[in-house]
């Protein structure tokens, strides 16, 4: 026995004898000698096969032990109950996987999608060779078909397997062929099930009815008769139900069973009453998949003009095939049916027609196991005989509405005007119906399959005892949705949570075991900031929604998570851009070598080392510059060590001593762990944390500073104003204090607190630090050293060594921000000119524009800097190349200024009205006739104000100019007029009208 292979069976000799007697292959099972080695695949046969009862023996499989036990019927039902009790409740471990293993709908629906993808894949793989064509040639020879048919018209084919689940199931039970067979979860066992506490079928059906009536009242008349009629339409099965029969629905039934009046979707209990000899076979999901794949591959070997509908149903455009082979549609169908049967041992029905609708209707006519071809000329005649229910898309509810209109057949429907149909069923559907009842169908095969939404819903077995269970379930369901999205490479933006909550009047225990019973359905949506499929995000959002809805977890009967507004992952661009953007994010908080380092190492070297060495994870940047000297040396040493040890590391971290412990504390635990781990790996003692000094006053992300060759004053320019903006006030103060400590003018820091530490501020500070006489060289040198930094960015951006886990740990929206930022940065890095030009774009970098005019400001003026400048901070992107451009531009202007020092003016520095007035006054008094570039500067300043939609500031300036020009020479007047006119032109450009100015002054 032990040597037996799993698939070998020993049967009693009686099997042969009995089979001969019965003149057919009898089921093996009753004759099996040794049942421990059955083909049992556990789960699949769980449904329990209870065959012919006359044999008086039923077989029950215990799936845990994978053994077959012969048993008396009594015991069978008992073990059966035990087994059904084993059905997990939502919230218990593995409920979800268990559920999906068993769920019929889940399998059917996922298979549909599966094959839609399968067809797409086949299409992609196809190299133009259709092996099926060869088959046809062979077949033509053997069967003597001519193949001289000339086919001109388009022919659609609709292939539908005959009672698919049953056919596939019967492959394992050849003995049952020809008997009434159904596929269902339950057993064909009419033994009454024991009553469960708290349920009441009749009452529940009453509830259903009431709810249905309530609903239908909105759409239909209150006529009681009609509602009653509708009820029988909608609930035709109620009458055959009683307290005890099984409520398991029949998924598929053989034609023999159909003959007995059984239909798909019927409850098993009711079906057994109609046909006591009914045999139930279990689902065989593997078999379905296998047969479906065979079916699709078979058809695909002839043509790839396919549209998958479901696992057993598809459309094909066979025009080309017919043309190539010269077969008539019917010949080809005969051939195809033969091939399908030989491959799958299942029958298919084939319908053909000039469009998809006709093909589909023809299939109905062809069933079972036949073929039918509707030619174009027969179309109208063919349609007339059809009932409206036969039309695809006309369900029970719509049929009911048609019946109310007195329309029962397609012929009657053809009499209805399109207007009436549209009025009744809506614009689009009305039109579709209008054409459909005439047999016209303009649809073409949908070869591209686009998913609109993705969801996972579970409305069975949901019974939560407490919130923990519910949240656990949410977690499982979230990961299921996430998994499904991942499978088809999409992310979703709109998350909808669908809940089924027990209706107030519904019984606590449902008629169907663990079913959802009568429920109120509610749904809530939320839009995510960016498309996502992270389980954690989904979970969090769902939890928020659940809390908002204040759901009582005990009343919950079903839950679904749906994602729509799907965004496909950009496969071609893949991960590259993302990595880049993280790098840029990291680069942003890059640490530059410290001052001390500067003194010992030539600057060029520093610039070179920067890219490879000093960028760190976001949020842990702290400026070296502020470390006490002794510590500095130490940290530098460590840094060096770390670097060496770390050369191959995927993600380079700064020396541990550079990390602000408070910041580290604030990091999410996983990030923190990663960082610490990385340090440990590098052999740096964790205790380093303790040696950290209190001096790291700049904890958060961006404001890491660069100390480049030009000295400390440049540091400011490295502060990312965006980040600085976001800092809490106390942090800002700290930073300012730090600057004060370092002897940097308070005014600068102050301007920082007021949210505009622009790059420009940095460069102009360079001047102040270097003294009032700005030389071309010094500015240039600052320019060059600055311009090297973009180079280092580039280096970083190419590195692919960012730890993917860091990236994935970031919230989606941050990633997007980073990506955007990097792109911007990149474009500006590559073309400084672009960045320069953008200065005149109002929303993006107005401050820079203002700052440009501020160029000539003196130290004193810098100090005066106040309010007005801050306006556009939000969108300013501090990018390095821009200051470079500004700095260089300035050189030119400064040169001029040196020639005529009195002409300081240009509204520079002055941003408040009094300051501007003061400046303008100085300008007026400085010389008799204005210099053209000064006019330009003023005009540009005003234009930038217009760009910036700061009309209210322009008005007083213009008025002031006018007033001042009154007593001046003609050249001044002209200049002022010019300025005003230019400004007005700008205003007109933006506002379609000039600024209204009092005319009394001129």
């Amino acid at each position, binding site marked *: 026995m032990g040597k037996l292979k799993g698939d070998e069976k020993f049967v009693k000799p009686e099997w042969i004898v009995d089979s001969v007697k019965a003149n057919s292959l009898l089921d093996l099972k009753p004759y099996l000698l040794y049942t421990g080695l059955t083909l049992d695949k556990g789960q699949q046969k769980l449904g329990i096969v209870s065959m012919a009862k006359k044999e008086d023996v039923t077989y029950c499989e215990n799936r845990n032990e994978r053994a077959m036990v012969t048993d008396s019927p009594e015991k069978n039902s008992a073990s059966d109950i035990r087994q059904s009790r084993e059905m997990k409740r939502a919230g218990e471990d593995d409920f979800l996987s268990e559920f999906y293993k068993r769920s019929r709908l889940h399998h059917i629906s996922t298979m549909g999608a599966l094959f839609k993808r399968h067809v797409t894949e086949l299409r992609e793989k196809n190299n133009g060779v259709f092996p099926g064509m060869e088959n046809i040639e062979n077949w033509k020879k053997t069967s003597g078909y001519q193949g001289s048919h000339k086919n001109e018209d388009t022919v659609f084919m609709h292939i539908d397997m005959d009672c698919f689940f049953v056919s596939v199931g019967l492959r394992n039970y050849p003995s049952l062929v020809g008997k009434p067979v159904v596929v269902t979860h339950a057993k064909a066992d009419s033994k009454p099930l024991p009553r469960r506490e708290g349920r009441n079928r009749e009452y529940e059906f009453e509830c259903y009815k009431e709810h249905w009536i309530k609903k239908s009242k909105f759409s239909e008349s209150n006529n009681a008769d009609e509602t009653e009629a509708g009820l029988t339409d909608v609930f035709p099965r109620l009458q055959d139900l009683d307290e005890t029969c099984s409520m398991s629905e029949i998924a598929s039934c053989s034609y023999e069973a159909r003959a007995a009046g059984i239909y798909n979707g019927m409850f098993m209990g009711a079906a057994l009453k109609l046909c006591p000899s009914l045999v139930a076979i279990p689902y065989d999901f593997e078999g379905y998949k296998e047969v479906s794949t065979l079916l699709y591959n078979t058809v695909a070997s002839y043509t790839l003009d396919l549209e998958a509908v479901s696992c057993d149903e598809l459309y094909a455009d066979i025009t080309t095939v017919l043309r190539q082979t010269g077969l008539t549609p019917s010949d080809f169908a005969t051939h195809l049916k033969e091939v399908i049967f030989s491959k799958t041992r299942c029958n298919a029905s084939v319908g053909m027609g000039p469009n998809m609708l006709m093909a589909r209707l023809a299939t109905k006519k062809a069933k079972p196991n036949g073929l039918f071809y509707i030619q174009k000329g027969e179309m109208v005649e063919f349609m007339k005989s059809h009932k409206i229910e036969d039309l695809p898309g006309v369900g029970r509810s719509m049929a009911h509405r048609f019946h109310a209109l007195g329309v029962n057949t397609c012929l009657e429907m053809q009499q209805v005007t399109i207007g009436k149909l549209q009025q009744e069923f809506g614009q689009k559907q009305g039109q579709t119906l209008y054409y459909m009842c005439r047999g016209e169908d303009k649809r073409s095969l949908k070869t591209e399959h686009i998913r609109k939404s993705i969801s996972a819903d579970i409305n069975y077995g949901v019974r939560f005892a407490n919130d923990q269970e519910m949240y656990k379930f949410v977690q499982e369901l979230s990961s299921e949705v996430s998994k499904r999205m991942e499978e088809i490479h999409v992310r979703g933006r709109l998350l909808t949570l669908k809940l089924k909550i027990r209706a107030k009047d519904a019984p606590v225990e449902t008629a169907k075991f663990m079913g959802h019973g009568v429920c109120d359905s509610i749904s809530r949506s939320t839009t995510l*900031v960016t498309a996502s499929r992270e389980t954690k995000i989904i979970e969090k959002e769902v939890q928020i929604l659940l809390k908002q809805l204040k759901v009582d977890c005990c009343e919950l009967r079903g839950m679904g998570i749906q994602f729509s507004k799907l965004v496909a992952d950009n496969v071609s661009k893949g991960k590259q851009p993302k990595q880049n953007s993280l790098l840029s994010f990291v680069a942003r908080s890059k640490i530059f070598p410290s001052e001390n380092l500067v003194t010992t190492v030539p600057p060029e070297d520093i610039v070179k080392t920067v890219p490879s060495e000093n960028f760190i994870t976001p949020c842990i940047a702290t400026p070296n510059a502020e470390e006490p000297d002794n510590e500095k040396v130490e940290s530098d040493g460590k840094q060096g060590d770390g670097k060496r040890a770390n050369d191959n590391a995927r993600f380079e971290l700064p020396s541990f001593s550079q990390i602000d412990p408070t910041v580290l504390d604030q990091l999410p635990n996983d990030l923190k762990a990663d960082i610490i781990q990385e340090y440990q790996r590098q052999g740096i003692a964790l205790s380093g944390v303790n040696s950290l000094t209190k001096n790291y006053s700049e904890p958060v992300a961006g404001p890491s500073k660069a100390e480049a060759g030009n000295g400390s004053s440049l540091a400011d320019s490295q502060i990312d104003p965006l980040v600085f*903006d*976001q800092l809490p*006030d106390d942090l800002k103060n700290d930073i300012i204090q730090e600057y004060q400590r370092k002897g940097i003018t308070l005014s600068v820091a102050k301007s920082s607190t007021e949210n505009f530490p622009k790059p420009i501020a940095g460069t102009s500070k360079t001047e102040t630090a270097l003294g009032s006489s700005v030389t071309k060289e010094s500015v240039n040198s600052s320019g060059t050293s600055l311009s090297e930094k973009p180079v280092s960015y580039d280096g970083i951006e190419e590195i692919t060594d960012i730890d993917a886990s860091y990236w994935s740990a970031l*919230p989606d*929206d*941050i990633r997007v*921000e980073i990506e955007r930022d990097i792109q911007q940065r990149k474009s500006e890095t590559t073309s400084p000119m672009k960045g320069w030009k953008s200065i005149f774009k109002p*929303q993006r970098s107005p401050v820079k524009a203002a700052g440009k005019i501020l160029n000539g400001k003196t130290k004193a003026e810098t100090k005066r800097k106040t309010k007005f400048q801050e*306006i*556009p*901070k*939000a969108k300013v992107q501090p990018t390095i190349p821009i200051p470079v451009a500004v700095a260089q531009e300035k050189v030119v202007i400064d040169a001029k200024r040196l020639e005529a020092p009195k002409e300081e003016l240009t509204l520079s520095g002055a941003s408040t009205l009094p300051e501007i007035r003061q400046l303008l006054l100085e300008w007026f008094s400085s010389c008799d006739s204005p210099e053209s570039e000064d006019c330009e500067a003023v005009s540009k300043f005003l234009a930038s104000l217009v760009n910036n*939609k*700061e*009309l*209210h500031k*322009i*008005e007083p300036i213009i008025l002031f100019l006018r007033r001042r020009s009154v007593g001046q020479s003609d050249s001044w007047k002209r200049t002022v007029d010019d300025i005003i006119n230019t400004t007005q032109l700008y*205003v007109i450009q933006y*506002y*379609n*009208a*000039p*600024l*209204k100015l*009092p*005319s*009394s002054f001129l």
Partner: protein
Amino acid sequence: MTLSASFSRDECIGLLVDFLEVSLHQILWACKLYPSEIFRQTQKFNTLVYKSIHPEVNNYIDNTLNTVRNLLSNDFVEKLVLVIKNDKPVERFVFSFHSYYKTTPSGKVTLNVTEIRQQATAIWLTMSQRLGSETHYDRENCTFAFEIHTRNVAYDKMLERQSTEDFQWIVADNIMNPNSVMPIRKLDSNPFCIDVYTEDYRGDDS
């Protein structure tokens, strides 16, 4: 002392709509389109403002603001305009939205509430001051209306929504170019950037 607080997107929009509501009432009061009896003094941000108590006027404003709120939270609004007409437009009060929300990782924005209040107050004061000093409209013949400037997509969505609401928007006439524009002020504090100005259609009578 500055007061800052975290606001979610909805709260930001709520604050903005509040600001718009007060502004609209303030304009109506200052324009003297209606007898001053229908206005009551009230306070907003510690400033004296006027609010209509006429139910129909208020209803009209509320409906408009509801639409604006919807558009702000779902789609896009470029401008909200209060047009004062005398057959032809006389003056238009434009609220031009450059930004009203900024996406942040936490989903919340920190507002400088003090600053926003000050700016809003300044806008209202400017409005009443400016309008109060001008010659008033011919009350008999003038009416007012609202315009929303948005994108096509948002417009389509609005049409869809309208079938379920009883407040209907119609497509505006072509808007003539004004004779002049006059700035009022700007509400400009993170994350808001809203430009308020008037477009004047009256000829230069001076």
